[in-house]
């Protein structure tokens, strides 16, 4: 299926003959050719002339207004380019070219803050890391002996990392088990109740995470006051945040498992529970791991639910249930909110740590999740069903 349409400003190429003005694209490319020389010339000439046109009055009037210049330049650029295209190719191509122009501009506008953000966070965080060399105070120290006069190297995120890992770990186990089973119910059994659960889980992914914290505060921390704050309470709040994420992702993954596998299992005489536990869930295994990892990544970065539950503690606290415990995003939040330049500098190191953790989890999820659920493995799983179960 080779549909070789010419670019909007070029003639149609017919039957493989490439007419002048049309850049030869890949043979099986079903779309229009994106670039050709004509367009590059039109675009750059319009841009330069717009810049000249705007620069002249700005220079003559002695204006020093970068925003004003940019807005005027962009408007002039779009106008000149529009006029050029309209004159050369007519109104239909004019609309198309202007749309392409605007969409490209939109893409660049979107990329700009994202690039700025990443470079800024990495730059700041790296500076903090370097200040702590040799040795990694960021990973090996806590804030137990930290005061407003301390140096950057006197504090670190040991307590926070331990707390985060424990809290997220304890939240993950029930969230994944309950989440996957709930997704199984939605997907394998269905019905009106399943529809309601699905819609609730969907709406819950948008639940403000501070409300998860407030909820746990209301039913767990407050009745135990003043000893209610603990890592365990934070785990509960993170569980509330994770559960809908796991349910939604797991449900999408389970939907990809081929229906024929289920039918084959049932035809072999397997009861429903063995069909689900021994065929459907193992087939979707990698996808479910992805769902779990995405949930963990979400929970690890959450600050708001932890504020009202873990409460934070400068000392390293291994026990999840014994009073306030630290947490990585929470510690960063607290550092930024407290006075002192060195606090903020350490916070940037923590922010980089957090970015690295999230990035690792996300990449792992991505790598595992790219493959489709193992359809071929399904045969082996079915073969296992024929044998009597050992357990």
């Amino acid at each position, binding site marked *: 299926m080779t549909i070789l349409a010419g670019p909007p400003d070029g003639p149609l190429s017919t039957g493989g003959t490439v007419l002048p003005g049309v850049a030869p694209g890949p043979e099986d490319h079903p779309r229009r050719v994106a670039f050709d020389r004509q367009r590059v010339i039109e675009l750059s000439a319009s841009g330069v002339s717009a810049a000249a046109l705007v620069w002249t009055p700005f220079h003559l009037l002695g204006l020093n207004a970068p925003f004003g210049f940019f807005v005027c330049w962009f408007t002039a650029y779009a106008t000149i380019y529009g006029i050029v295209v309209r004159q050369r190719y007519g109104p239909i191509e004019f609309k198309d070219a202007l*749309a392409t122009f605007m969409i490209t501009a939109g*893409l660049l506008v979107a990329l700009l803050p994202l690039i700025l953000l990443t470079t800024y966070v990495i730059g700041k965080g790296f500076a903090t890391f370097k200040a702590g060399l040799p040795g990694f105070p960021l990973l090996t120290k806590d804030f137990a002996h930290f005061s407003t006069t301390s140096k950057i190297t006197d504090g670190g995120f040991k307590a926070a990392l331990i707390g985060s890992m424990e809290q997220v770990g304890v939240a993950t186990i029930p969230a994944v088990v309950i989440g996957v089973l709930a997704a199984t119910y939605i997907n394998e059994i*269905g019905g009106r109740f399943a529809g309601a659960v699905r819609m609730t889980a969907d709406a819950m992914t948008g639940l403000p995470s501070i409300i*998860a914290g407030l909820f746990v505060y*209301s039913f767990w921390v407050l009745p135990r006051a003043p000893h209610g704050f603990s890592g365990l309470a934070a785990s509960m709040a993170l569980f509330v945040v994770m559960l809908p994420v796991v349910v939604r992702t797991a449900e999408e993954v389970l939907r990809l498992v081929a229906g024929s596998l289920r039918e084959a299992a049932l035809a072999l005489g397997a009861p429903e529970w063995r069909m689900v536990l021994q065929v459907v869930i193992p087939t979707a295994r990698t996808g479910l791991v992805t769902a779990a990892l995405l949930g963990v990544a979400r929970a690890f*970065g959450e600050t708001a639910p932890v504020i009202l539950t873990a409460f934070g503690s400068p000392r390293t606290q291994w026990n999840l249930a014994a009073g306030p415990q630290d947490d990585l995003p929470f510690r960063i939040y607290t550092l930024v909110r407290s006075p002192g330049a060195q606090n903020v500098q350490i916070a940037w190191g923590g922010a980089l740590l*957090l*970015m690295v953790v999230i990035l690792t989890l996300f990449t792992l999820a991505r790598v595992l999740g790219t493959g489709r659920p193992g359809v071929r493995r399904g045969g082996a799983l079915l073969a296992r069903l024929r044998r009597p179960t050992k357990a």
Partner: protein
Amino acid sequence: MTAPAATDGLPAEFRPQRSRADIIFRGVLMACAGSVLAIILGILFFLSLRSRLAWDHRGFGTLTGTLWSPSQRVYGLRGDLIGSVVIAVVALLLAAPIAIAVSLAINEYLPLRLRPPMVALVDLLAAVPSLIYGLWGLYFLNGHLFLLSKWLGHHGAAFPLFRLVSGAPTQQSEFDAGVVVAVMILPLMTSISREIMSQVPREDCEAALALGGTRWGMIVDVVLPFSRNGVISGALLAFGRALGETIAVAFVLGQTSVVTSHILNQGGGSMSAAIANYFAGSSKLEQSSLTLGALALFVGTLSVGVLARLTVARTARKAAR
């Protein structure tokens, strides 16, 4: 969609006998699914329980009152509730057109080789925690954005919301918070609308091109009509997320919790940030008032989420037909 469902309509003697193990299994699954509903109901119940005090104190006045004054035992959340909506609207107005442009660019414009990395980048940015966005907004954006705010104030004063209070700082405003939240919800909305747009039947697009349409013509006549509901629902989900955004707003906004029409000037309110900022160490009545506000926020975001879900369900039905 599954095999067991197909047997439900059969006469009793052909229906497979469910063993006790299967009945227990179904029960366990149902309990897990029910726990999702139970959590939502639990949140509703406990937030209502804890906001009783504020409700008995002033009733709706807590939500509609404008004054927040712990010393007078008067707690009004109007500034915070309206501020949350204003920030979310600013964020959505900024993010929605760009998100649509980016999803169109990814699906229709970018060279094929660049598409998968762009998709991965957008999804990754959606996973970056709001704390990081907040830090960046506080230390980087705040130092640059006030120039834009000043510029908008000087040249856009014809638009009432852009009017500046002369002499007042233009940092840490609701507009700034809106910009940071816009950067945050941009990947979320992009990934939803991109997903929907990629489901447009390719044959329809090719037919439009084969008839001699331009790429923009194809987008207007094929892609956008097909994906309209999906894009709207993506915008709604993004709006809900913006409404409840806590940490980024708490960092960027110089919270004053008053109703303000000067969105470019310092100050303003946000319900979620108010909870993060004021809750710890406040009196029982204050906490209860904030909980009442949280309840309002909860109901608001939940209904936006359900609305989004219903919009998508309509598209799915249309596609199935």
